């Protein structure tokens, strides 16, 4: 009797969260799928109607599409590589005994709290500007020609900015994991004559594996939908050189008002995210069982 009561109370307490999230997920998604089979242009409604898969075909045959998928993957993979490897190295460094460790931690973690538009604008204007940026000042100091980052290497520039934002996150989490490593184990390994490298490979790395998995999962979620950084720096250009999938969908929907095509792109983005999510969630689920 009592358990029955508790159980229905539990259901009642859970209902608002579950219902809200369910509605928030399903309603817009269904509308998107519906629009992806429609011709719909708010500016030119004459030809509106059901068009089957032609939006997908149009979106697919758009040269920007493959480019945007490629850019999305390039961004995710490069930033993951930089932040995970850099994060491990930085965590190992900061974990050493030193003076002012607390302040070092604070300095390193700071970029994570900078909102994306600020991060992008600061890098665009103060650091990478071909005329007045710090990089240009440095290049001139060494007698070199300043680089037009966003004109010549737009993807690289965006990768640098996004990696700068996420490196602190990876470092902080990996450092936390590192610091929970049992000191006695480390000492025992040292006594047994294990060098720094073998200690790292056989003791530290396995200990950090769970944290690394989590870092990859969380970052992937956010990196797949990088938007503000592109909006305020290159606006997807030059051409489509730095357009990722979210940005392409945004352009189609709110700039060109090709709602059908944008929705088809949105559905593709969902499928892509789900493929990634499938693997990521399994990894996390496994780790949380421990």
């Amino acid at each position, binding site marked *: 009797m009592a358990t029955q009561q508790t159980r229905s109370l539990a259901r009642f307490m859970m209902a608002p969260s579950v219902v809200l999230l369910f509605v928030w997920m399903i309603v817009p998604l269904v509308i998107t799928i519906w629009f992806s089979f429609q011709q719909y242009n708010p500016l030119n409604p004459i030809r509106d109607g059901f068009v089957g898969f032609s939006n997908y075909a149009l979106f697919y045959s758009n040269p920007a599409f493959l480019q945007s998928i490629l850019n999305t993957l390039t961004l995710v993979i490069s930033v993951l590589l930089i932040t995970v490897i850099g994060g491990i190295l930085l965590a190992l460094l900061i974990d050493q005994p030193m003076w002012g460790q607390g302040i070092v931690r604070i300095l390193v973690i700071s970029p994570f709290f900078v909102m994306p538009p600020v991060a992008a604008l600061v890098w665009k204007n103060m650091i990478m500007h071909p005329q*007045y940026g710090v990089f240009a000042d440095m290049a001139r100091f060494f007698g070199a020609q300043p680089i037009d980052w966003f004109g010549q290497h737009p993807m690289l520039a965006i990768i640098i900015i996004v990696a700068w934002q996420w490196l602190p996150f990876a470092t902080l989490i990996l450092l936390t994991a590192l610091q929970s490593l049992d000191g006695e184990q480390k000492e025992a390994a040292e006594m047994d004559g294990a060098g720094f490298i073998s200690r790292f490979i056989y003791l530290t790395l396995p200990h950090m594996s769970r944290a690394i998995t989590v870092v990859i999962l969380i970052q992937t979620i956010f990196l797949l939908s990088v938007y503000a950084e592109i909006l305020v720096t290159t606006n997807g250009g030059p051409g489509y050189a730095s357009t990722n999938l979210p940005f392409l969908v945004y352009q189609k929907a709110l700039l060109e008002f090709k709602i059908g095509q944008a929705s088809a792109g949105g559905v593709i983005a*969902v499928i892509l995210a789900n493929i990634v999510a499938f693997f990521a969630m399994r990894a996390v689920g496994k780790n949380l069982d421990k």
Partner: protein
Amino acid sequence: MARSVTTRHKTIATIAAWIVALLIFFPILYTIITSFKSEQEAIQGFSIIPSGTFESYSEVQAQNGYFKFFFNSVLLSVGSTILALLVAIPAAWSMAFSPTKRTKDILMWMLSTKMMPAVAVLFPIYLIFRDTGLLDSRIGLMVMLMLINLPIVVWMLYTYFREIPGEILEAARMDGASLWNEIIYVLTPMAVPGIASTMLLNIILAWNEAFWTIRLTTTEAAPLTAFISSFSSPQGLFWAKLSAASTLAIAPILIMGWFSQKQLVRGLTFGAVK
């Protein structure tokens, strides 16, 4: 002998770590420095000693009405966080204290909703907001931010609540505490730290959210993310002003962030790393 080696090791580590840390922090530091320069100084090449003028700060307020955006940011991040807590606390509570076979599936499902790319639902949400008059309204955006962060809030509260030992509740009940007393005197004091941490992290996430806050607002409800983005097409070079605006936009959250490093790790890793 061994001691001198340790000191040397420590010295090298200190120097290396400080150099790397300062390099990483440099863009922020340089922004703060530039915000105290005049517009003339700001584009005159590299220098780390500003003339110390506050004119950019007063201009950002006078010309752009900075405080309206700041106020919106505070309202949206705090408001959406309180909304999320109101919805999430009961859910996390029941999952932590009376878990069923499906509890873990529900948690994973909630997390999976975070995987949905925002752009995929941009247009439907835009339509819904437009047709219900929620476009550029603080309430609409508050609900939006609440929904976005709800999975993380539920997860984080759940990991905190799970650590409250159930035996304490039983003991209180045996001592004859009523349900109400149990909640007020036993549970609340133990739950408050977890709730506070969750709140802190969620305010940071909501403050920095830069997709919906930019796309669903124009003037009335626009927070700092939208305000800063409006600087992306500058009419002329207003770098001191941009720096002042940026400094003001990140300062509150930066300071909050420094104090919440531990909670951040825990919250963003769903309790997997502590």
